[in-house]
């Protein structure tokens, strides 16, 4: 085991996808960051999410970032030497009734008004042609054919190992206890000693608010546990990922035949103990949604359930960008159960901010300053992820 040098040009707190992605992009720029992870890489939300790689249904502010991230996804093997299990079978948000149709049509109009054409309306016939197993009463949907899904654990690992191969360092099982700035250096006190770096990145996921609070810029972060169920392997019946509109659903069949059922219903979580307890009555509601949309799923066998621990922000969009109170501190957290697809680009944004002081992508809506009293409230168009 090599000695861990206790200094680095950048320290990244949190070894999920965003921390690993930041480490990768910095390493590509010749900056060898040190990632400090309290459990193991991808232990929490990054390793257990639905793996949705979608530009569909993004919050308006996220759309440009998401479209840029997709460019990385399309060549992911070139970036991280692994295809990450990325399947490009499309993502579709379906309308069960007229109210849903109206919601989706309004959404499409908003996209067009802002010059975005990646989302496409398809009628009931086409939905049924693409997804023959769906209930015949489906009314239509929005689709992005170039979207898809990937394996979250594998993806995060790939970013981590590629970053390490380019000189980044990772320490797992290390807990950050206290942060202090002195003489232009960040003093990171951990349970394995003191580490120092001139630049600090907060990718601490559901625990990131603790760091923000220490920096005098508290944020109203809510640790949540979006629940997932997975079935035993079934014969192939579904290509795209299917999302709900009026009621929450995320529904996907993996290459191995297992079916992942999500949608954002919440478990009980205790972030101090890394503990979650599934809420079965809530899961039952999700099960009803699935059985209504895909009647043959009644017979499917649920073999496992789980909930990661994720950071939910009240406006549903993450915190990205420089600290509002401290020099040389950057945030990338609060992805509110839809951060996976953005992992590749957010790491680049943070890396660019660190190495060049700027980013080409519009990150003002994600500023941590928006939570401070007196900050102007931005017009939001929020869609359930």
């Amino acid at each position: 085991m090599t000695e861990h040098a206790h200094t680095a040009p950048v320290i990244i707190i949190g070894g999920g996808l965003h921390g690993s992605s930041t480490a990768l992009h910095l390493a590509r720029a010749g900056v060898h960051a040190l990632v400090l992870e309290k459990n193991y890489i991808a232990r929490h939300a990054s390793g257990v999410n639905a793996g949705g790689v979608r530009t569909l249904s993004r919050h308006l502010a996220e759309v440009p970032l998401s479209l840029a991230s997709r460019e990385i996804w399309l060549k992911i093997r070139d970036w991280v030497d692994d295809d990450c299990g990325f399947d490009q079978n499309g993502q579709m948000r379906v309308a069960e009734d007229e109210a849903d149709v109206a919601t989706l049509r309004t959404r499409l109009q908003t996209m067009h008004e802002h010059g975005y054409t990646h989302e496409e309306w398809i009628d009931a016939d086409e939905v049924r042609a693409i997804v023959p197993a769906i209930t015949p009463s489906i009314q239509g949907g929005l689709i992005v054919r170039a979207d898809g899904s990937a394996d979250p654990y594998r993806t995060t690992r790939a970013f981590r190992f590629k970053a390490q191969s380019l000189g980044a360092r990772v320490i797992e099982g290390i807990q950050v206890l206290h942060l202090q700035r002195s003489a232009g250096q960040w003093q990171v006190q951990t349970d394995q000693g003191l580490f120092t770096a001139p630049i600090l990145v907060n990718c601490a996921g559901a625990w990131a608010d603790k760091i923000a609070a220490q920096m005098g810029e508290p944020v109203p972060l809510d640790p949540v546990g979006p629940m997932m169920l997975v079935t035993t392997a079934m014969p192939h019946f579904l290509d795209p990922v299917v999302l709900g509109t009026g009621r929450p659903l995320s529904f996907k069949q993996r290459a191995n035949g297992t079916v992942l059922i999500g949608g954002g219903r919440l478990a009980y979580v205790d972030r101090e103990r890394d503990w979650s307890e599934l809420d079965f009555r809530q899961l039952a509601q999700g099960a009803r949604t699935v059985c209504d949309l895909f009647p043959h799923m009644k017979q499917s066998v649920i073999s496992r359930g789980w909930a990661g621990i994720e950071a939910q922000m009240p406006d549903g969009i993450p915190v990205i960008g420089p600290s509002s109170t401290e020099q040389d501190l950057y945030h990338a957290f609060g992805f509110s159960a839809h951060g996976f697809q953005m992992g590749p680009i957010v790491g680049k944004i943070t890396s660019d901010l660190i190495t060049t002081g700027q980013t080409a992508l519009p990150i003002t809506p994600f500023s941590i300053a928006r939570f401070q009293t007196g900050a102007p409230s931005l017009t939001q168009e929020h869609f359930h992820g």
Partner: protein
Amino acid sequence: MIATTHCELLVVGAGPAGLAAATTAAQHGVATILLDEQAAPGGQIYRAMTSTPILDRKILGEDYWHGESLLEPFKQSGAQYLPGATVWAVAQMTVADATQGFEVGYSVGGEARMLHAKQIVLATGAQERPFPIPGWTLPGVMTAGAAQVLLKSSGLVPGKGTILAGCGPLLYLIAWQYLNAGIKVDALLDTTPPGRLGKALRHAWGFLTSPYLVKGLKLLREVKAQVRIVKGVTALEALPGDAQKGHAQERNAQNNQALQSVRFTAGGRTETLAATQLLLHQGVIPNINLAQAVGVEQQWNELLLCWEPKVDSWGGTNVPGVSIAGDGGGIAGAWAAEHRGRLSALQVAHQLGKLTAAQRDAASAAPRAAFMRAVQGREFFDTLYQAPEQFRLPTGDTIVCRCEEITAAQVRETVSLGCPGPNQMKSFLRCGMGPCQGRFCSVTVTELIAQERNVTPQEVGHYRLRFPTKPLTLGELAALPQTDDSKKAVIRLKKPV
């Protein structure tokens, strides 16, 4: 609308520990439900005691029929019995009123229901230890426990070409039961390492004064006289051949492979025997899934080489309101199980205010003394019959995760690819992600990782298990009631019959 049932104590598992726990609790005024997934009481050790077609009691033996003594007191106790019920979740924090105990999700006949309990005693017992040898997934290879179930429940005995293999008293017991029924197995391949007896004899005093001794020796003698026993087996493989003919339908499967022979090495000589049935056994381990999913801490038992829940002398755990009785809390055998059930129940009765501490202590004196007698000699057994390393730590193409068909080589290689623990291993390889939820691979994976990394199993840890602990269909889940204002049926003690 499905009613939500309320009780003071839910006992899960109707083996000796569960039967005794439910009986004792109800006798002390605790409104108790005994829930079990089998159709009849007895758990595994006393499986089918109320329904077995084997009426000649000499075949199964008196230890089996001892189970009957638990039935009448249970029926008279007033506890409710819910058979054919499989628990798949236990909730505490997501319950409508979190101060009131637990909400338990279970299914009967494919229909999901919820019940509410202030306290839970888990008496889910033991399972066969995995026995990963080459070919252990072939049709025709089963556990010795499975063969016992067939005998007890259906009066079925294996035909020609049956081999018993492994270590531990159960192998000899089943050979003996078969002899009583007029069946002689082809061979009993004993993997107990030579020299192990010497190691075990250090604990012999406990054994010599234990009730196991006389019964054990007599049984051993009878089996040795009639069955070919091969001692000191160091290598064992189940080899495939063509699928057996019979009622086979036209199949499209490319690989028609079932058990055809068993190859073993003992005393430096290798031999192959034709076989249609290979019955494997190398001890039992606690069934920890439900306990672990509800948050009970586990520890690695270095003698028994398995994970077991941490319990106090009443079976209490780190989760308030959850206690464990019987082999599910650490292997101690059937005789000990019923006494542990009584002790857990007395503590529950005390915690629910039915008994003062003094009353509890007075009532527990006899079961505790009986428990101490029942575990006398176990250390001797446990040392003698510890599963040998080569049969716990497979290599190469030997399957480790039966459900997902993952091999030992894959697991070992994945450690060096940066998966130092079972949960990373699970995420990367899918081992442990199948319907058995790690029951047949958890201890193997923990020990393989420990060996590859040269650290202790305790340090490696175990799979992080979550509910549902038994699979259920999406349709079953979908039919759960939405809210808690479904009719509440309050369980009261039944009047004695």
